[in-house]
């Protein structure tokens, strides 16, 4: 039941991001973004931080596998790595925001700023919420709540965490990759 619930949550969240991506694309075609603003995006650095986020999906998968084998000690290690990777991604996003704001690209500066910060910001918020959930799980693991248990909580949280990663595939493609190659 928990997993069905989380799949539905992920479904509704997916539609939320479809709306935001739609707004971004709509703005790009409707009023058009200033080319110099789009050129300020740093696809290489963000690409590297993206790899951190993607690998966190792998480490979470490892954590879940270890838990199923009853290996609580490895579960702890993989969970900690997952949280660290997620946090590094958020750190990268924060760094990019600061750099862009210093370049005078802000939420209220232009339609590009508006749709860029709204889309990536809501994704970042989801990563942040994921980190909170993972931290709660981690504390529960350390307290011993998951010893000798067969709970589906970790699997359920996993659905959310992988989803946040998949959303970034689309966001990264639409915001960074496509403009980089098409020069809109």
């Amino acid at each position, binding site marked *: 039941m928990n997993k069905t619930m989380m799949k539905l949550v992920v479904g509704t969240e997916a539609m939320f991001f479809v709306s935001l991506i739609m707004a971004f694309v709509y703005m790009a075609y409707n009023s058009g973004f200033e080319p110099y603003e789009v050129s300020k995006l740093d696809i290489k650095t963000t690409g590297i931080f993206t790899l951190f986020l993607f690998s966190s999906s792998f480490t979470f998968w490892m954590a879940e596998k270890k838990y199923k084998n009853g290996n609580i000690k490895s579960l702890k290690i993989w969970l900690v790595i997952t949280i660290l990777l997620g946090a590094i991604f958020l750190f990268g996003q924060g760094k990019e925001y600061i750099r862009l704001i210093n370049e005078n690209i802000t*939420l*209220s500066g232009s339609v590009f700023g508006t749709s860029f910060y*709204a889309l990536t910001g809501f994704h970042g918020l989801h990563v942040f919420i994921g980190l909170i959930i993972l931290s709660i799980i981690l504390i529960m693991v350390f307290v011993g709540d998951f010893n000798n248990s067969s709970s589906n909580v970790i699997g359920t949280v996993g659905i959310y965490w992988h989803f946040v990663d998949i959303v970034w595939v689309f966001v990264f493609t639409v915001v960074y990759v496509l403009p980089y190659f098409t020069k809109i």
Partner: protein
Amino acid sequence: MKELVEISEPKSPFPGVGVSTDQGLLQWISSVDHKMIGIMYLTVSLFFFIIGGIEALLMRTQLAWPMLHFLGPETYNQFFTMHGTTMIFLVAMPAIFGFSVYFVPLMIGANEMAFPRMNNFSLWITFFGGLLLYFSFLAGGAPDAGWFNYAPLNEKNYSSSPGIDYYAMGLLLAGIGSVTTSINIVVTVLHMRIKGMKLNKLPLFVWMVLVNSFLLIAAFPALNAALAMVLLDRQFHAHFFNTANGGSALLWQHLFWIFGHPEVYIVILPPFGILSEVFQVFSRKPIFGYSFVAASSVAIALLAFGVWVHHMFATGLGITVDSFFAASSMLIGIPTGVKIFNWLATMYGGKIKFTVSMMFAVAFLVEFTIGGLSGIAFSIVPIDWQLTDTYYVVAHLHYVFIGGTVFGLFAGLFYWFPKMSGKMLDEKLGKWFFWLFVIGFNTTFLVQHVLGMIGMPRRVFTYPDLPWYGVLNFISTSGAFLMGASSLVLVYLIYKSIKSGKTAGDDPWDAYTLEWATSSPPELKNFDELPVVHGRRPLYDWKHPGSEDE
């Protein structure tokens, strides 16, 4: 002897903590029982129905005669906005959720919802969202850009009072409540059905609520995203809808109607489900074409996402786009029409019992068809261009919302009230209520078709004394007061029936589905054991052994 299955106990929300069973109000507030939450949803709905109704009456008073100055234009704008927003988000949806969370577990033979605490959360966040919306009156002015809150009217330079911020926050909260309830319902239906109740044996009400929940889960995020964007615009000077800085006012319309058109089906599908139960029981026949009724709802749900631009024909999107959405809008009339014929065929040859519930169901067929036909008229683009933003739209949407949704909900109220309260609603007074309401409703809105065709625009606080304008508006206003009076009859009827109604018994209608297999009202634990389900009318089969094949 029939095979019986034991129904598992509701999970205790706080394991190991005992609660004394009589705590009065606190017990209601903290309850995680789906039946108490259902009744609270219905109470919230009634509460806001009275407020939204008073707003409507004040507006109709202002419009009773040309050039009145009972309400000023600013107040009038706030009232029509709040009336629409209230009736859709705080009356229709809570009423639907009330019936859904009360009856879905009972009809599928479960003792609880899948997530009882989330159920409680959904109720209260919806209610507090509503309160937040209404707090705007105290905080400097209610929202005033209409219930669909078009850009750029929703931007700070057109609406500087904080009303629209409260609109966005209030609807976000209520929206979260709606989505969580829907998720809860889907999980409940998919995982907690009694043995033997396959998906093709689900009672039709449950079918509709299930389809509807998927529809809601998919549609609401578009609204939530739009609301988040308008908040960013207003609070942080972003430029989503601000055309002066390169934003797009049309983007709001797209996002809103991607949500908004499914929304009108969200408030009609569960009443369709109620009617599918009511027609069967009071015609003493199983539903005609069960699969068609169920499948056409799925068709409606899918098509609902492909028609939103018919709200935007007047924005000039081009002939190709207009033609596509005109065609899809006509298409969606088909599965709805299929249902109407299914219900007619269910009645055909049946031993019809004209209880108040059945009277509302039959009246629904007439009124909803009128609303459906004026809707089909709108899918023809030139007619839409001529009539959009006139009183014809007001007439159309009230025929589908009241003639459809509200009539369906009243049919449900009269059908299920005995189960929820253990008391019968007085049929004689109920018939008074029915006729007053039906006559009041048609008097109010039938003439508005004409008003629209002779060119009276909607959403203006007064009008010049043109030929027929005064008379027709006066007829409409008197009808509105008749509806207002009938609502008082309804409140009195409910009060009187709870106080001194006839005891209902477990199964007063000799009905077909499992909610009537337990006591009225049901105990905290709905069922101890139930028979394995073999047919689509499990209780009927139980009462008449050997009839499963029917």
